[in-house]
């Protein structure tokens, strides 16, 4: 039966991704003290999760297309095409992290909350770039394994990156907020 088949195929994966999100949410729960101490920090949470999700799933899906086009494979993985993709994703993360920090500061300022702009932008920048490096590495490892087994990367990278992406991003945000709070 059609409906039964659809439920059977997508329900387990969606529940699994939800369990990953619980880990990400629990990191937010652990951050309560930092959220109290750093005004504006909670504002960047949805934006930085969305940034990570958008950039890494696009990165993964481009590598998937590159595989189908025959540009990269498990023997010829570390080439100029891959390097350009990594560069693109890192520079985007850098740019957009600064934009997120600035927007969070400006909108908070308008609404009468006064965060420290340097602190807020540094936190987002560090978290954005470090999570980009970690997720790029993870994508390359996943892609390499997928290639070797001859699977279609398009079916695997999306959900895998969405699930790990949220967790890695929240842990990086927590670490970077902690670091900046101690140093600055």
């Amino acid at each position, binding site marked *: 039966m059609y*409906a039964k088949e*659809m*439920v059977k195929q*997508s*329900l387990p*994966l*969606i*529940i699994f*991704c*939800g*369990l*990953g*999100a*619980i880990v*990400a*949410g*629990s990191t*937010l*729960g652990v951050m*309560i003290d930092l*959220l*109290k101490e750093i*005004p*504006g920090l*909670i*504002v*960047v*949470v*949805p*934006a930085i*999760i*969305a*940034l990570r*999700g*958008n*950039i890494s799933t*696009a990165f993964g899906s*481009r590598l998937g297309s*590159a595989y189908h*086009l025959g540009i990269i494979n498990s023997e010829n993985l570390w080439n100029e*095409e891959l390097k*350009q*993709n990594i560069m*693109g*994703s890192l*520079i*985007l993360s850098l*740019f*957009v992290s600064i*934009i*997120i920090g600035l*927007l*969070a500061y400006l*909108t*908070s300022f308008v*609404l009468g*909350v006064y965060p420290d702009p340097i602190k807020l932008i540094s936190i987002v920048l560090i978290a954005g770039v470090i999570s980009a490096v970690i997720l790029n590495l993870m994508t390359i490892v996943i892609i390499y394994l997928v290639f070797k087994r001859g699977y279609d990367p398009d079916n695997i990278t999306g959900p895998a990156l*969405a699930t790990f992406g*949220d967790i890695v991003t*929240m842990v990086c945000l927590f670490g970077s907020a902690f670091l900046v709070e101690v140093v600055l």
Partner: protein
Amino acid sequence: MIYSWKKIVKHSLPLLSVTILIEIFAGQILQGKQESLLLFPVFLISIPVINSISGNIGSVLGARLASGLHVGYITLSLKNKEMHDNLLISILIGLITYLILAIVIYFLALFGNLIEEITLIEFVAIIVFTGFLLICMVSFISVLTAFISFKRGLDPDDMVAPVVTTVGDVMGIIFLFSVIGLIGVGL
């Protein structure tokens, strides 16, 4: 060489900037409710979960509609039966997922001593009702985005996921606070 970092940045930046702007709006709602959220951390933990489920279901629905439109077994009609079946199944999968994960979150929070003055039934009712409203809205937007982009000659595969996840993030937070207010647990 097919890829260049400049092209990647140039092509991604516009849509990404719009997404970020909307997500900052979602973040400001969280900041406005920060005190209540810090008093009831169980809802803070739930926010990424609520958004993840609706984003995934909306994207899966969008991808199925896109394939149907490309192949031709779904037509651009709001009366299409295949589309209705897909919608109903998405809502069903959503309800099951929200129910299971609400129970998991409640017991995790209970275990971590984060639960105060809220019963399992109340919490599950809040999450499942929020989830139901969100899935209905996200599914509707998924159909709308898929149909409109297909009609204009754009690939629905590129459009549905970013639109659905962004709208879902904002509406998830708004629905959660509305439902909490409606059921009233002192938040």
